[in-house]
């Protein structure tokens, strides 16, 4: 796998306490390493520190302790703007991150901040909008877009900025299933085209299943990590970790109580279907 590739995110001993939180640490000695090109899902129940972690990576929070190195660059006052260029973030609420008055203005916003020349800006904006399939909506105002479309515009803004890392902070949690599917498809396609490093903070089982690695946070610490197959094998325990139980695991549990023999490892939908069919053939 990606064992020998470059470490793009190196986080050591992060500590963060929100003001007025009575010394409850949102991040408690958190250390994580993420490889370039890796897709990592971060899960955990509400209040486990997931979003705090995401916001600390590009200096949106002032840490009390610890070090963050992004693409070889240590996060500090002097490097924060350079690091923000390397990280694109999509947040939860589609409405509250739409800065521009129209789709194209919003996509251009990040480029304007970097002072990029207008001619380059134009081609990048047009290209980015096309890649998320929003070309027909270029001049639309946000109030006339669906939630899924707004999140795709946010993704286009990130594509235009060409960062190394994409952070999704519960980016699909406020969308309807259709919007969620649209956005997830766009992310998959993006990942394929650019091989960006993706860090997704999520409760969504499909989003987590897309990852190479799942990291579980609790009380501001990494409590466990593994491939989706390893983590999904936890079955009912996943619920408490802030993730839905994958359907094959639910069915496995239901069948086990009915004394049907079931393997202990995690089975994807396809493998579960195959397994059941093989079992059926033995009858």
């Amino acid at each position: 796998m990606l064992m020998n590739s470059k470490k793009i995110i190196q986080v050591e001993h992060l500590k963060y306490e929100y003001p007025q939180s009575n010394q409850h640490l949102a991040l408690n000695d958190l250390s994580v390493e993420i490889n370039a090109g890796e897709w990592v899902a971060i899960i955990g129940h509400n209040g486990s520190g997931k979003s705090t972690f995401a916001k600390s990576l590009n200096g949106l929070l002032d840490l009390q302790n610890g070090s963050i190195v992004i693409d070889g660059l240590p996060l500090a006052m002097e490097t924060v703007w350079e690091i923000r260029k390397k990280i694109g973030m999509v947040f939860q609420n589609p409405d509250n991150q739409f800065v521009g008055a129209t789709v194209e203005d919003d996509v251009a916003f990040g480029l304007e901040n970097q002072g990029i020349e207008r001619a380059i800006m134009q081609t990048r904006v047009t290209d980015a909008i096309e890649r998320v399939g929003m070309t027909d909506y270029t001049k639309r105002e946000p109030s006339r877009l669906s939630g899924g479309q707004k999140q795709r515009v946010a993704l286009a803004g990130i594509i235009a900025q060409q960062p190394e890392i994409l952070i999704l902070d519960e980016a699909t949690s406020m969308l309807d299933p259709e919007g969620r599917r649209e956005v997830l498809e766009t992310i998959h396609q993006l990942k394929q085209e650019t091989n960006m490093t993706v860090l997704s903070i999520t409760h969504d089982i499909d989003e987590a299943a897309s990852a190479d690695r799942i990291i579980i946070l609790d009380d501001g610490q990494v409590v466990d990590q593994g491939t989706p197959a390893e983590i999904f094998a936890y079955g009912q325990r996943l619920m408490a970790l802030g993730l839905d139980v994958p359907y094959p695991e639910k069915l496995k549990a239901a069948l086990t109580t009915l004394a049907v023999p079931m393997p202990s490892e995690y089975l994807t939908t396809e493998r579960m279907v195959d397994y059941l069919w093989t079992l059926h053939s033995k009858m």
Partner: protein
Amino acid sequence: MDITFKDVSYTYQPGTPFQGLGLEHVSLTIESGSYTAIIGHTGSGKSTLLQHLNALLKPTAGVVQIGDREITPETNNKNLKAIRQKVGMVFQFPESQLFEATVQKDIAFGPQNFGVPEAEAMARAIHMVELVGLPADVLEKSPFDLSGGQMRRVAIAGVLAMQPEVLVLDEPTAGLDPVGRREMMALFTRLHEEQGMTIVMVTHQMDDVANYANHVIVLENGQLAKSGTPREIFADPAWLTAKHLGLPTTTQFAQALIQKGFVFDQVPLTEHELAAMLQAQLPSKVGERRE
């Protein structure tokens, strides 16, 4: 208390260039004591229909009968309060309706508007906080100091405190984490089963429809596309897929099994149902040991 739509149409801003159709010739009945799910795409008329259930909107044609009250286009806007007390409505992201200084006062706000004396309304609030599964110490807190999930419970408690006969919920679990979603759905099941409350829920989660509802209304472009029991609605997976409405995960999984060669005599809706159907077609552990 039954709610019946008789040939109801609703047009937005009639006679202006912004005229738009919300509902078109909709006839349906939401029976007392039912657990009704309303499904359909964004823009299918779900929210318009919802707002007719407690007379926030009046039909531009047809009649909505709510209990013994008839709402027609001519109905006066006054004296609709009795309806709003009987049909409690929880909007999407209801936490945004909180405004009082304390949780207790906010929950007591609704009942007081319907003439319940302050002391009684405050007492109801204590009970409601417990009912929605919040610790008693939140009563004196500002609702704005709570987490998003807790705020939503407070908002729901505020509607329940009105002691409605019908509870209308617009995507009540949107944006919650899995545990929050499960607890929320359990609360509605409790209200339905223990208090016999009529539940009307707009949802995109077909699993919830399959697991909890006993009546489904499918809307499309402001019209009633289908209605019936979940089993009747999900009996035609091709129809639902064509309409991009999705299927319960179990039904979808069963489709894959059917393609392999499994045969089921009816559409399975929940994993337990599917497991039972599969058990009959699979060797059991006991059988294996015997080999």
